[in-house]
């Protein structure tokens, strides 16, 4: 089987390519290691001998466990990365920042009074933002963090929700903010308010829940559960399929079990 790899991920990386592996130097918290040039930072650290307990979660760029800062020799800039996503760069000096303290406000989402002041009431420090843009430059997800913080100050909750949707809560923006903000916490509060208070609730969902509570499908389901294999297969094969192309007005010809 061609696409199989042996369990050790770094080895699969090594043996996957051509026999020649180009090694480049990286500096993990100041210590130099030679690692294959095409590995992600995470796999390179494992290649170097690390076994992660912190700083590694999904390995797929979505959990935000592996926030990393680094500098390159020819620039004064502090760069950021998700270690599981970014390929090593020769001579990078890196450190993971797997945790940064943050104080979450505690609230009951259902009972929040929602207006322009809600975010500020729970996170009054948003007004301290000086609009420096460091957060935006520090976001490995390319999120316009400063803009969503500005929207938060204006009380535009929908805008915060929209702009911050791809936030993985890695905390790198928090770590670098001169105003000591907790941007991802403001953002998730905004998204949850948007989802529960601002976006209209799904009417059809409420109706369906009501139908279920009224026991509407009990008999249909019990009947199905009693079917033997042959009958069940027949019903399965005969299912009418909703077509691929979007058509909100599509209705099945057989509406008996709806």
């Amino acid at each position, binding site marked *: 089987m*061609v*696409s*199989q*790899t042996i*369990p050790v991920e*770094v*080895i699969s*990386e090594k043996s*996957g*390519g051509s026999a020649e592996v180009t090694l480049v130097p990286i500096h993990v918290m100041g210590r130099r290691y030679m690692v294959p040039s*095409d590995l992600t930072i995470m796999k390179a650290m494992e290649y170097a001998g*690390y076994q992660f*307990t*912190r700083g590694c*979660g999904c*390995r*797929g*760029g*979505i*959990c935000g*466990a592996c926030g990393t800062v680094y500098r390159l020799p020819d620039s004064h800039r502090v760069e950021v990365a998700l270690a599981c*996503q970014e390929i090593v760069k020769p001579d990078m000096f890196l450190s993971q920042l797997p945790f940064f303290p943050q104080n*979450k406000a505690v*609230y009951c*989402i259902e009972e929040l009074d929602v207006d322009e002041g809600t975010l500020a009431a729970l996170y009054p420090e948003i007004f301290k933002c000086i609009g420096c843009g460091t957060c935006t430059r520090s976001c490995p997800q390319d999120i316009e963090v400063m803009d969503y913080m500005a929207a938060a100050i204006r009380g535009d909750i929908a805008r915060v929700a929209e702009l911050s*949707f*791809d936030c*993985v*809560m890695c905390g790198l923006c928090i770590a670098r903010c001169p105003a000591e903000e907790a941007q991802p916490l403001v953002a998730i*509060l905004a*998204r949850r308010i*948007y*989802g*529960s208070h601002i976006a*209209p609730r*799904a*009417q*059809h969902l*409420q109706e*369906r*829940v009501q139908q*279920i509570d009224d026991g509407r*499908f009990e008999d*249909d*389901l019990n009947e*199905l559960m009693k079917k033997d*294999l042959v009958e069940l*297969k027949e*019903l*399965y*094969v005969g*299912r*009418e*399929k*909703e077509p*691929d*192309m979007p058509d909100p007005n599509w*209705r*099945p010809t057989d509406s008996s079990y*709806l």
Partner: protein
Amino acid sequence: MPYPQELKDYIKQVESTRPERVERKRRGEEFASLSLDGREERLKSYHPDYKDDALRDIRVGVSKGYGISPEIVDTLEARSRIDPDRIEFDEVDHEADVLVIGGGGAGGAAALMAAKQGAKVIIATKLRLGDANTMMAEGGIQAASKIHSDSPYWHYLDVMGGGHFTNDPDLVKTLVSQAPKVMSWLEGLGAMFSKDPDGSLRTMHGGGTSRKRMHYAGDITGAEIMRTIRDEIRNHPERIEILEFSPAVELILDENGVASGAVLYNLDTREYVIVRAKAVVMATGGSGRLHMRGFMTTNHYGATGDGLVMAYHAGVPLVFLHSVQYHPTGIVFPEQAEGLLITEKFRGAGANVVNVDGEQFVYEREPRDVEAASIIRECSDDMHKGVPTPTGKVGVWLDSPMLEMLHGPGYVRKEFPGKYILFRRYNIDVAKEPMLIYPTLHYQNGGVEFKPDGATVLDGMYAAGEVSGGVHGENRLMGNSLLDVTVFGRLAGESAAEYASKRDLPSGMNLDHLRKYHEELDKTGIETERVAPVILPDYTNPDVKERQVVIAP
């Protein structure tokens, strides 16, 4: 790594057949799906589960004689990671009504519901709360929410058919009837599902669905659900205590053999920690990081099947572990992203799967196992229709650019921002170029046996989520697992709280079940250095390991 010239040349084949394939799709003409017999034949010949040496019998414990993946058998035929004689119970470190083991979707839902019932809850989790497979789910969550075109009845049929009619009917009934409620619960918590302006939930097809009932939040559905649940958990500090970097290593039983807590391990300080609890919810998720049959995996770092081992040590049977789910579409190129998942939503939206000649060879929405087996077949020596990569692998194309033709320019970027960004890092524009894919180890179809209310044969222990088995039979359909974890997570949390409320503080805590298990291993003649649960995979460079020494304090 943009596509090198040789792959670009192959892409021309895909482009040459694309206009016609799009036309057919527009006319509603689909590639013929396999008959039920055809499916079975395909699976038998090409699915990894059906290979001769795919399964090995377990030689000890309650499910002795049951043949499952050798990698899981290895963890069951290992000694416990702890020596029962070295653990002291005089000092209990934490006390709770309900101990939830695992901080993913199932554990999170269980904790919230248990707390709502008034229980004092501890969540012990291996890494951070939310470092879990739930966080990684992209495609969506199924629920028959559309009142004019769908119902739990049709959902039930789809689930059963997907699972080859082997599923536990009671569990499926609970799954499909609770589904809309769970969606409503999540909506109320503020999860931002993709909606029309009037608030109607957007839905699409997934593999094996007869109706469009896949709900989604962009292409990060699981992350949206997980971070919402996590935030909600943190809104209850008085009721829910969170212990991160504290994997459970074994269950603790009381003098009557009732589950009464767990031994945890502090990953930072390496001490053990004793939690006493009146009820336990096992929600440790899957086992992709055991790399069954050497496959690459989509799973998160902590998916090592620990819950199976802990529950099995305490006498809970395992079911449906003989089938493992390979996701049809894992990335094979670029190499750095190898194994990562391409959500089934691409196929749900109509993207064809095509071979090296740009030809379709399988309907893109077969159940996952059939789809995966078909791709493996196409790349096999029997067919020779795979696309070779520069790094010596083979894959087939997932034709994402055709979605731009079907649904309008900008569609791919808008509906699949996550994957769009991922590939852009490698200078590949998936709105214009197709993706090269091959099956990847994805989901543990089976697990510990349990009832709709979460109960297991072990009194005091409840189970929910990927660690459990029966809901999906031998094959899970996309979108039914996020549903499974929220539905059964909630139910297990409620049941555990209820059980705890009727029970006194456990006394006579012990680990005798481990002593017995070790005896059985000895009697069966299984001599091994292996210990389990695995806790973390080890990807440390073996050359380095060779040179590692312990310097005495």
